[in-house]
């Protein structure tokens, strides 16, 4: 049975858009059949139904909303379907995995259901983006507003925020925890696209650099090291795209290394992460525990995995969020895990194609920023799990549990779609 899931994901890369949708559907149905059979639980049936409805409805909605007339010809285009399919597949894999991890929980407690609802909210919001961008016509000129709102949000986190998983990143609003940095990330890429919309002079670079550095510092202080890194690297990448200046990029990287070293000396929590990264086995009963457990998950059942529900993926720390990749590798197989990584790569590649396919400079930078951010975040968490880099608590986009992350990621994809459609001649979109 485990070979069937492998078949779905491998075939996904080779077929056209409509067949891809069928594969996603097949994946969903196969997986939930197994989960329902194993759990005999009504809540799992509900989740299966809800996510199925979501999948199908979202598909039609996306097709409808993104369908526009191309002004230069009589054709219609439907948005970047392959990009959407990638996202939909990831979303489905995520919901299936979350269901599996919380399979014994009652419906009210089920993360999978919450995630499905968040996706529903996110996709609805995403579909509203074209409208929003239409209204705020000259959004690329709103530089200062972005800065202001960002600083407001981050400061409010520092002041009002509550600590979870060792980082102060969450604010509670009406009983739902809400990760402000996710939204600042979106504002940030809009800011960068805006400030660099014309080739920048040194003044602009210094100002934007200082702003970025401030955010990074604030995040480091609230122990969101992953977040800080993501902002920094995104800035560097967009800066390079905007200026083509390799010296600036190298200088930035070098100063980052220096800063990292200083941080290592100053902050004990960084030393802990570095120790665990270098030799998780030596510190297996303390700092390295989470990483070691992750390796057990990935390695124990080989490349074909244990089979859905036959492994022990809950024997991991934070498995619904940071470590979710190892749970997938454990039950679907590490080969499937490798294919999953390729799926992300595919999505980012499509994103870069969109960035390079538009002649509008600020759109191009916007797309670059979005893709860089998502790609680097994915790299950060996968790299942390596999000890390529020290572990940071960031989410695996679209798969890890987290409402803010889901909404933000889907929103980013929505912006990419909008840029794409615009670039393909849909000026009235």
């Amino acid at each position, binding site marked *: 049975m485990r070979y069937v899931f492998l078949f779905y994901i491998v075939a996904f890369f080779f077929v056209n858009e409509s067949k891809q949708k069928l594969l996603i559907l097949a994946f969903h149905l196969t997986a939930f059949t197994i989960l329902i059979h194993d759990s005999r639980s009504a809540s799992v049936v509900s989740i299966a139904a809800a996510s199925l409805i979501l999948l199908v409805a979202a598909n039609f909605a996306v097709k409808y909303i993104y369908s526009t007339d191309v002004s230069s010809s009589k054709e219609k285009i439907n948005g970047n379907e392959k990009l959407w399919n990638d996202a939909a597949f990831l979303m489905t894999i995520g919901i299936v995995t979350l269901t599996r991890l919380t399979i014994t929980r009652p419906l009210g407690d089920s993360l999978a259901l919450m995630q499905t609802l968040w996706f529903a909210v996110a996709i609805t919001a995403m579909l509203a983006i074209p409208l929003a961008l239409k209204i705020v016509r000259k959004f690329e000129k709103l530089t200062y507003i972005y800065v202001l709102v960002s600083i407001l949000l981050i400061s409010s986190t520092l002041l009002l925020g509550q600590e979870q998983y060792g980082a102060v990143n969450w604010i509670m609003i009406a009983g739902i925890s809400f990760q402000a940095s996710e939204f600042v990330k979106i504002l940030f890429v809009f800011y960068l696209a805006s400030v660099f919309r014309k080739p920048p002079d040194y003044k602009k670079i210094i100002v934007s650099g200082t702003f970025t550095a401030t955010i990074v510092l604030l995040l480091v202080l609230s122990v969101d090291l992953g977040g800080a890194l993501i902002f920094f690297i995104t800035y560097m990448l967009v800066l390079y795209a905007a200026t083509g200046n390799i010296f600036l990029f190298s200088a930035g990287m070098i100063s980052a290394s220096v800063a990292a070293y200083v941080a290592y000396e100053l902050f004990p929590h960084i030393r802990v992460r570095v120790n665990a990264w270098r030799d998780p*086995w030596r510190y*297996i*009963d303390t700092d390295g525990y989470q990483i*070691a*457990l992750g*390796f*057990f998950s*990935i*390695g*124990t059942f*080989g*490349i*074909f995995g244990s089979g859905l529900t036959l*492994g*022990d993926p809950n*024997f991991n720390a934070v498995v619904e969020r940071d470590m979710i990749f190892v749970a997938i590798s454990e039950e679907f197989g*590490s080969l499937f*895990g*490798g294919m999953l*990584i*390729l799926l*992300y*790569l595919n999505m980012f590649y499509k994103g870069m194609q969109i960035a390079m396919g538009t002649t509008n400079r600020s759109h191009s930078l916007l797309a670059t920023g979005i893709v860089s951010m998502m*790609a680097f975040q994915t*790299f950060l968490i*996968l*790299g942390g799990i*596999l*000890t*390529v880099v020290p572990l940071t608590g960031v989410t695996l986009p679209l798969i890890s549990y987290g409402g803010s992350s889901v909404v933000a990621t889907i929103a980013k994809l929505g912006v990419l779609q909008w840029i794409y459609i615009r670039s393909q001649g849909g000026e009235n979109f």
Partner: protein
Amino acid sequence: MFGVILFFLFRFVFFESHYVISNPFNRRIHLIDSNIVRGDIFDRNGTVLATTVSRNGINEREYPFPTQFSHLIGYITGGRTGIESNYNFSLQNLYLEMLQRTYQIIFNTPLRGNSLVLTVDADLQLVAYEQLAGRNGAIVAIEPSTGQILSMVSFPDFNLNTLQNDWAQVSTDTINSPLLNRATQGLYPPGSIYKIITALAAIDSGMGDFTFVCTGEAVFNDSSIRCFNNIAHGYLDMESAFAHSCNTYFAALALELGYDRLIQSSEEFLFNSVLSYSLEYNIPRFNLTEFSEESELIQTSIGQGRTLTTALHMAMITSGIANNGIIMTPYVVQHELTFNGNIRNRELPGMLTRATTSENAEIMTSMMIEVVERGTGTTARINGVQIAAKTGTAEVGNAESHGWFVAFAPAKNPEIAVAVVLENAGGSVPAQIIAREIIQHALG
């Protein structure tokens, strides 16, 4: 960037994961998959020690030798120990998994895990077991040149076939402690066999020509030492003192030698060290420091004091002497045997440590030969075979002393090293008899 990720994943999955997943922290290794037929366990000659049989449609584990290999084979129900536990994963590992699963779907053949071939010799084990004859204690026999464990016996023991039913009783029997593997986990004071280390420490420090006149009893500051039965050994050089196991000689020697050299020698022979044995064992203890009292130094030099060792450890030390000073890593599983007869994961002999130089080992060997020729170990003599050995009687408070005997044979080109400990035997002679019979069988 992502290429790096994929590379790391690939590297882990294909190269590193095998070592990593057997880590005891990985609770998955204790999972039992009832769809898989557990592999068998064989001795080095193919004798079946554990197998799975189907009774009334259910797979059950059966042990042709219910008690002779109990601690070694171990169990996973009730508790977890031994080969059944530590190699649980290998025994359920499906070689050519896809093929086996396909055959199962088409032909309904069972899924078979890998079998294990041990280093242990069943015939030798049965001889050892019979020799122990229901007395409390342990026997460990090792092949010195490779570190392969040829035999490991511990008594009291338990019945592997009825363990689940007996569990409540055996697990609470604190008088006999049948579940304790006395060969690897039973910590006993070494008594006079420790003099091997004291002597080597002296030889290594150039004191091999130390002489002493033994009058049966000696007083050093405020501690007094007696020889066995107060025998006065007279004028002694090291060879004679060793052969007759003279306590006063070694006490005097230790005082001359000093704390540091004795501590160093003990650590070279793996006291307080990891023994790199893949099943459960206790680390032998040596607590002497340079701040200890002089009386403790003296007691330690003759193997009393707070020093504790195990039969496995002493067998390893003996093997080290037999093997020109090199102690090989002990191991008990030779390789895995797949369902279709392929050999996998062959364990190769490896050097654990060089405990002493080969010159010193040679000197020690000739001293140990004298023990059997004219010393305290003459009971172990075998016609036509030169045996090197050391006897030991370890005092234990108010009870009868434990009897120790360690030996290897043939003294030149050794094939087997044995360590025998008999609880409360009163002397080493019963242990000598056991060792003699084992060696006779192994070489015969």
